[in-house]
């Protein structure tokens, strides 16, 4: 789950990490004006969106007076922020109001799970304030890494060593090592799947502060953190994905015109590939899991048909422990009462697949016995109908 900068900073400050003084978030220009007054007149307005690269896109502005804060907020609230990471843009609904900083130096601190090492890994760089992936590509030598034993946790010497490896200025290392430990503690206790401070800023008065912060939370661990549930902002996700989320359906919107329903993530992925090979463009990934109960099929099909681009639907189901004839009954029960105006193709394989297919003879479902035939058929039907 993605959260906003102001939420990430709130978490970090709970663990003792230094963050800029703020006046909360503004939802209106009047609130931005009030915020600037609270902060002593001038303030930085930062668009709270889930994508990086917002500075260049006009999502961060400095106001020298409360009046200017109001005027800037007027322009920024409601704007569609288009960045390299989000070409379709994200609407700005709130602005974080912070004290302006006089920055003299910028570093990078981050923690991510390293799948290969099966450990969390600290990442530190003296090249802060820019996209770390770009740094990793262009200046790999400027990045220091330190894998952390999950049973021992982050030790002081490791926090120091990774800073030395990254060639941070020696005079700052004792204080930065402390911030790294605070970041690690926050990462661990909040079940993050990524936490970064970028930049970690050195200010003209000698302070060290988390000027920007980003945190991703592990969805599987949200049950341990009811306090984060209120941070979920579905309105900022893709509307179809938000609806799937509400219905409890495993769905990813892909933007093509062939709707796809299958059981099991691997099989659905292979089905998408097969549709693409047949010359179609998958509209979505949708995994109904084991079983294929009528209600879940109906729910899933409704969701897919609410995507106006969908011109055909492909079901690809492997009957395993749930037998093929039961799956066929579920799909038939679901589709029988629905007014479906696009062609539907069903491919059923595995246990009792032949019996299942026999049940579907003469219904509005076209049947195929192989994945590649089914993909070719749904693409042909969808394209001839349109």
């Amino acid at each position, binding site marked *: 789950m993605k959260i906003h900068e102001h939420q990430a900073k709130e978490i970090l400050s709970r663990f003792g990490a230094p963050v800029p003084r703020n006046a909360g978030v503004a939802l209106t220009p009047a609130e931005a004006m009030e915020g600037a007054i609270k902060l002593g007149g001038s303030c930085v307005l930062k668009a709270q969106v889930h994508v990086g690269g917002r500075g260049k896109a006009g999502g961060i502005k400095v106001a020298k007076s409360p009046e200017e804060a109001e005027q800037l907020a007027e322009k920024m609230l409601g704007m569609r922020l288009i960045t390299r990471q989000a070409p379709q843009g994200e609407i700005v609904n709130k602005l974080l109001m912070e004290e302006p900083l006089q920055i003299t130096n910028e570093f990078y601190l981050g923690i991510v*799970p390293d*799948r*290969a090492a*099966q*450990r*969390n890994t600290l990442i530190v760089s003296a090249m802060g304030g820019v996209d770390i*992936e770009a740094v990793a590509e262009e200046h790999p030598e400027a990045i220091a890494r330190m894998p952390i*034993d*999950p*049973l021992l946790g982050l030790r002081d010497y490791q926090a120091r060593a990774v800073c030395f490896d990254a060639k941070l200025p020696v005079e700052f290392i004792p204080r930065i090592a402390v911030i790294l430990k605070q970041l690690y503690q926050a990462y*661990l206790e909040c*079940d993050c*799947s990524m936490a970064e401070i970028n930049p970690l800023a050195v200010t003209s008065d000698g302070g060290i502060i988390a000027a920007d912060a980003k945190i991703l939370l*592990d*969805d*599987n*661990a949200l*049950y*341990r953190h009811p306090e984060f549930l209120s941070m979920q902002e579905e309105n900022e996700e893709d509307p179809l994905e938000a609806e799937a989320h509400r219905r409890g359906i*495993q769905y*990813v919107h*892909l933007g093509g015109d062939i709707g796809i329903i*299958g*059981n*099991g*993530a*691997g*099989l*659905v*992925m*292979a089905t*998408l*590939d*097969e*549709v*693409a*090979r047949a010359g179609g463009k*998958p509209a979505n*990934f949708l*995994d109904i899991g084991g079983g294929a109960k009528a209600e879940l099929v109906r729910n899933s099909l409704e969701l897919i048909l609410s995507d106006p681009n969908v011109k055909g639907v492909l079901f690809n189901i*492997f009957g*395993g*422990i749930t037998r093929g004839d039961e799956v066929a009954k579920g799909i038939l029960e679901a589709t029988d009462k629905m007014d479906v105006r696009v062609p539907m193709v069903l491919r059923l*394989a*595995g*246990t009792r697949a032949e019996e299942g297919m026999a049940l579907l003879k003469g219904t509005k479902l076209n049947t195929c016995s*192989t*994945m*590649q035939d089914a993909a070719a058929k749904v693409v042909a039907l969808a394209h001839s109908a349109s």
Partner: protein
Amino acid sequence: MSIIVDENTRVIVQGITGREGAFHTDQMIDYGTKIVGGVVPGKGGTRTERGIPIFNTVKEAVDATGANASVIFVPAKFAADAILEANDGGVGLIVAITEGIPTRDMMESVRAVNLEGSMLIGPNCPGIISPGKCKIGILPGDIFTPGPVGLISRSGTLTYEIVDSLTRAGLGQTTCIGIGGDPIIGSRFIDMLKYFEYDPDTKVVVLIGEIGGNDEETAAEFIKTMKTPVIGFIGGRTAPPGKRMGHAGAIISGKSGTAQAKVEALMNAGVPVADTPHEIPQLVKASLGMTA
């Protein structure tokens, strides 16, 4: 022969009275798996309907039954604890079916299992089967048949799909392992390939990978040193970056974890990579020197 599990595997079920646990225990018994006990804290001393003795702790169950494997069906919240209990109880082989375990829990559990020297398969996996001998997990037993093909996969139903087509093509299996769709799993492709390489009956291995991580690339390096031929398939060629495709581990992060990189790594290791699942039986036949 087969790897890891066979007729001598004695299995306990953690979570044997839950809905999933009870259903799949029946399926495993019907398949012929030696289910010797179950563990449900507080229900020790009772028996299941099929007469399987239930114990309060894994340690008690192992002491009483001589179990050398455990399969875990407990909910995600309690799954890491169950893995650690199995690890501590000395069962040697732990198969975790549970989906949705937090990453932090899995990092700690995998580290503890590695220190103990136990083997963990999963989590978020369908389990392991040596056809005709032993099935641990939720795989549909009747699509498998004994034969010379070893199979390792990150997916469940895609594995069934491919096994079904192998079986229909007359190609049976030594052992099939679903290693799981999570980013942090106990046994990876390379760990299983090492077992297959030393199994005289496995004449060819089918490796079914998908987007996310770089376990396929690591496996490809090992495959270069193997005598047993390997056939590959990678799912998710059309998946966009940054989107999690159902499995927690199936995500392209930045430029890492793409299907293209995995296909290339495997092909550089001399592995024929199928473009679509239905090509796999032909590729297997060709590697066995059978006419397709």
